[in-house]
């Protein structure tokens, strides 16, 4: 494969217009980029790598040999959103996450959306992520997805598409924060010349969000903990980072125990009660008494305390039913049904192979489509049709025929690109955006921007860090341009 056969040729560039001029509002940044001596940039890029390695920000990648503590490539060129673009995105994101929460509350209670025929019942009830244990149980504030990561791609100046919703345990926010930290250390002058919306308050927002959903019976200030599977989890660094920045304990299953309908952590001073658990462990591993009995990561009896209102889990158990790739198709419908509004953010047209017509179309057009596993995540197990070999497509077609309901397909979008610093200077690379939406019992909180992921290989559309993607600092320019004041 060569650089020339990149799929979408007419990609929208987020920084540079077709005629080579900077987009309005970005003149100062582009000017700086062009003036900065090549040698300095090279040095800064190297400094960035040293900083990340030293701080210990690495990401474990499984099953590929090599360095198990891999550094996620960081690009020194920021990705910029103008304030008005972000304002629109933020409204769209809030709308979407509100609808997802209403949907989860609904499917674990009366199932009105199913009764109204807007979402197929079997898609909900037969979903592997649907947890019958949650039926009829009122979670505090009726919030299920407290922390949502919504993956957004852009194809034009005003065209934002949601690629997928992550309503379970989305990760990456620590990279968003560290990218900003590193950028400010490397290029303080850039931050003097632009009015960039801060993101540093995310951990405070997260703590407030979590405290807002403490069990109603909790007296005084709720004790929040972060529950991690431990050192060998790929996102462990993030777990420690968030606990540290929030000023709360980072616990593992072995540190917690259940007694008298409450959860306690083992401390050097004896047991201490826990009110809210920000868990970064999948549902199936949370409680060996209710879910997988072979799990050593969870806390026996946790589910009972949870259902009795003795502790709050964030995100709630069973939230995965809202974010699989088949349910994705129905999110615009959820927004109309629950909120009575038109969706602000677009959905990518999606074919679901469970439907015969769709399956036929997908199999006939494999060379044009991106095919994904309904329950997959992290970019594993997907087929990028235009880039696959005929043999790969044939093999994938077999898998689709065997289990059609497990696959969806989407057109390959002309993902926007952003100049990126590569070996021989700046080159356009495709980017996406994962903003993080915090939903508390009191309100919805968003920090400006999010995590920008970039496909470091020329022409590649796969931005997942597990697949070699990198990240950029994401700027929301508060006055839409350089500060001339």
């Amino acid at each position, binding site marked *: 494969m060569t650089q020339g056969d990149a799929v979408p040729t007419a990609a929208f560039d987020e920084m540079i217009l077709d005629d080579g001029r900077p987009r309005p509002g970005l003149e100062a940044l582009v000017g700086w980029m062009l003036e900065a001596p090549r040698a300095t940039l090279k040095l800064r890029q190297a400094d960035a790598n040293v900083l990340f390695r030293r701080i210990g920000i690495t990401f474990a990648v499984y099953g590929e040999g090599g360095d198990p503590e891999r550094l996620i490539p960081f690009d020194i060129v920021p990705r910029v959103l103008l304030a008005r673009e972000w304002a629109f995105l933020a409204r769209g994101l809030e709308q979407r996450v509100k609808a997802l929460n209403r949907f989860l509350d609904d499917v674990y209670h009366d199932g009105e959306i199913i009764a109204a025929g807007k979402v197929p019942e079997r898609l909900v009830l037969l979903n592997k992520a649907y947890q019958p244990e949650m039926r009829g149980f009122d979670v505090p504030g009726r919030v299920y997805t407290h922390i949502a990561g919504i993956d957004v791609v852009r194809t034009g100046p005003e065209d934002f598409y949601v690629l997928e919703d992550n309503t379970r345990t989305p990760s990456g926010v620590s990279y968003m924060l560290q990218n900003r930290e590193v950028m400010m250390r490397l290029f303080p002058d850039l931050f003097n010349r632009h009015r960039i919306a801060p993101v540093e308050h995310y951990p405070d927002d997260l703590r407030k969000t979590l405290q807002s959903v403490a069990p109603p019976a909790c007296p005084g200030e709720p004790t929040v903990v972060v529950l991690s599977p431990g050192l060998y989890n790929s996102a462990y660094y993030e777990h420690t980072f968030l606990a540290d920045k929030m000023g709360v304990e980072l616990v593992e299953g*072995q540190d917690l125990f259940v007694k008298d309908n409450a959860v306690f952590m083992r401390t050097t001073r004896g047991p201490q009660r826990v009110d809210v658990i920000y868990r970064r462990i999948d549902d199936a591993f949370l409680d060996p008494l209710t879910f997988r009995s072979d799990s050593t990561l969870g806390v026996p009896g946790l589910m009972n305390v949870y259902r009795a209102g003795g502790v709050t889990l964030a995100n709630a158990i069973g939230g995965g039913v809202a974010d699989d790739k088949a349910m994705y198709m129905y999110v615009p419908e959820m927004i109309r049904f629950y909120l009575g509004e038109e969706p602000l953010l677009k959905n990518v047209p999606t074919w679901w192979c469970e439907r015969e017509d769709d399956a036929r179309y997908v199999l006939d057009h494999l060379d044009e489509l991106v095919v994904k596993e309904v329950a997959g995540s992290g970019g594993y197990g997907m087929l990028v049709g235009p880039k696959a070999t005929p043999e790969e497509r044939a093999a994938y077609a077999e898998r689709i025929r065997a289990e059609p309901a497990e696959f969806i397909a989407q057109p390959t979008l002309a993902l926007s690109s952003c100049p990126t610093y590569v070996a021989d200077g700046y080159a356009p690379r495709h980017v996406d955006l994962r903003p993080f939406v915090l939903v508390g019992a009191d309100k919805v909180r968003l920090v400006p921007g999010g995590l920008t992921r970039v496909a470091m290989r020329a022409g590649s559309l796969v931005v997942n860090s597990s697949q070699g993607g990198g990240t950029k600092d994401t700027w929301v320019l508060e006055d839409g341009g350089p500060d001339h004041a």
Partner: protein
Amino acid sequence: MLSRTAADLYWMGRYMERAESLARILEVGYRMSQTPDSDGTGTSRNEWESTAVAAGCVAGLAEKYGDATLDSVIRHLVLDEDNPSSIQSCLKTARTNGRAVRPALTAESWESLNDSWLDFTANWQRSLGRDNILAFLEWVKARTTLFRGATLGTMVRDEAFSFVELGTFIERADNTARILDVKYHVVLPAGEAVGGPRDYYQWATLLRSVSALGSYHWIYRDSIQPWLVAELLILRPEMPRSLIFALSQVRACLDAITSAHKQNYNCLRLAGRLHAEIGYAKIEDIIRSGLHEYLSEFLARNDALGNEIAADFHFYQ
């Protein structure tokens, strides 16, 4: 604080201290092996064997590599992943412990641990041999000193800090007692001179291994007397590697940790008694009743103290 966090901090402190002690012990062994008459003539055990004894690794070494030589010592005491007390294992375990409690550490403490391990794997692990062992040991001492400095200079004096210190000084007491014990059989009655120049040299290197040669001269203004060396390393409170110093630090840490709650801790009692007994001991009595016996008993009681600490703070549920 979480019990698991406390345990990780404690062991992090212990393993960094152990890495440092090991580097010191190996350095002494290397210097001794460089003396002209050190090829084993006339003595029953060579320097490398006593090095392994001092490190508490003699059985493992014999079993896996046979004779104690420079090469086998480097393999077992420095690089052996199966030996939990090899320098490599110490650095790795300390870093793993530190990583597990990253939020409890300052950036400086964590980065010193993390950098040490990364530097070790990148620059030493594959190239280590007899030619660069001395440079490596210098590097270990520099890295552990950096960690110690970062911890002392940046960590808030809270429970986390106290557990790191607790591990450090329990380990230091253990190591000093071991180093001294290696030479027990040549300790002479008070007042008698040391034997030959080689013997003198061995005592000097022993002192050097705990950075106490200069201190010895300052404190005693005398030629090296074995019983004074024993006094320095057991009873002198101004000597930072003496047993009494280590135990007073252990007591201070335990007091700080337990001051906020009224429980009755066994470890507090054990530490207090051990500390007081050393505090009121006289070197003449210790030597008369046998230095080796004294040190053996101390090591057992220090071990028991470690176990009691683990039990009192619920390290292993």
